[in-house]
């Protein structure tokens, strides 16, 4: 039996999951999925910034477009250090595709016109 606090939404349900993956304490279905992932392959969305060449701003906010393995968070940060982006950029533009061979992309989360 493992006790977890669900991080899917701000409610923060107190979950319990047993050896045969039965989940209790969740108020919605997403809590069940979260608990199963958390004990098998925990994932997180990584958000950060990369260098930006623009008239108004110095940093471009970015994130993984899907949650990535928790163990890869610091490797993602190392990859982001290598990147420099020139304006214009649109929110949603892919900044790094298939990062670390995970099939997950790094996308811009802000539109910079100039």
């Amino acid at each position, binding site marked *: 039996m493992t006790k977890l*606090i669900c991080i899917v939404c701000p409610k923060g349900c107190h979950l319990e999951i047993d050896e045969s993956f039965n989940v209790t304490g969740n108020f919605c279905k997403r809590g069940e999925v979260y608990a199963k992932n958390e004990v098998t392959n925990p994932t997180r969305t990584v*958000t950060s910034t990369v260098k930006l060449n623009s008239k108004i*701003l110095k940093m471009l*906010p970015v994130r993984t477009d899907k949650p990535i393995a928790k163990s890869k968070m610091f490797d993602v*940060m190392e990859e982001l250090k290598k990147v420099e982006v020139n304006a214009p950029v649109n929110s949603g533009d892919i900044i790094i595709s298939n990062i670390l061979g995970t099939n997950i992309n790094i996308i811009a989360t802000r539109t910079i016109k100039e």
Partner: protein
Amino acid sequence: MLNYDLVIIGGGSAGIASAIGAYDNGLRSILVLEKEAYLGGILNQCIHNGFGLHLFNEELSGPEYAERFANELIKRNIEYRLETMVLKINKDLTMVCSSVNGCEIIKAKAIICATGCTERTRGAIATQGDRPSGVMTAGLAQRYLNIEGYLVGKKVFILGSGDIGLIMARRMTLEGAKVLGVAELMPYSNGLSRNIVQCLQDFNIPLYLSHTVKRIIGKNRLEKIVICEVDNKNNFVLNTEKEFEVDTLLLSVGLIPNNPLLANLGVKMHPRTKGPIVDDNYETSVPGIFACGNGLHVHDLVDFVTNEGIYVGKKVSEYIKNGKLASEKYVTIEAGNGISYVLPSKFAIDKGVAEIKFRVTKPHQKSHINVIYNGEILKSIKKQYLLPAEMEDIKFDISKLDCGNIVLEVIDD
């Protein structure tokens, strides 16, 4: 002098939402004033995800959420001005504004104050010790890092378990800083549970509950802090000091609505929320001046700010169309046992249903929220848990009531 039906002070999430609410209810003469060079307010530095879960069922970053609503504003051709700061509001609803055009007077039929909140500082909690550099609020460190691109320190301690502090613990760790711990004065965390998990536990950052910073030590730059356990009266407990060698202390010790404009005008302020006292239309004690968002009371989630802004925008457009909104008969709403504050402070009976937002003073397990009207229980709802960090709301029928007093209270089962 420029004339508009509605001027909105602040182009953040509350200001944008109220402009959209007013426009979609038929108002056209609207101007939004924003002091920064871009719309979106504080969301622009909140690059973490989790915004928009309630409204879009998506986990957007702050800038993404801001951009969705800024685009809605632009799509409607609602006028806005950037790098424009309101210096003064007068009782006749004229405003003195400063911008690259110099000083201008703008007159409105109604004003919405959506001026957001500010962070409490070291002065507000009176921490003793030296005054070196390296002690700052968590939100300031967030701005330096996410907007300006500077990491403010390498060895960090955080005082206060508010969400911004927790978010910055993770953010600075990912950027290569070592976060040695978070101290929280209360015996429970003030942040969302999900942030305790994904910002502290994920990175093995210890959380010291019932602890605070006793002393700040450093000649030029911060060198060391001493934390200490506190008892239930917030007094230091003897021989519980722990020292941490750090170059940075971030403070995440609460937010206060930012209302110098309204305070100078003599608008009545709420002793608990520190924002203006408002009625059921979110109108302040000065006719024609409305408030919403974190400038009114600090919200937990931006989704709630957006909803409140849209509601207030709609009400203000009715106010402008009809010249007034006030009703004849009201019930007053008060915070009773275990309730920190209620908002709004009165509700018109002809609205039929009252919708009240409130916070509790301390955590509760199984309990009931009672709505008491002139001494009798009008409604009672069961709660599995209640936390001061989470704003609650309650709806109840007031159509059959006469003028009188409603008190909200929380009773443990």
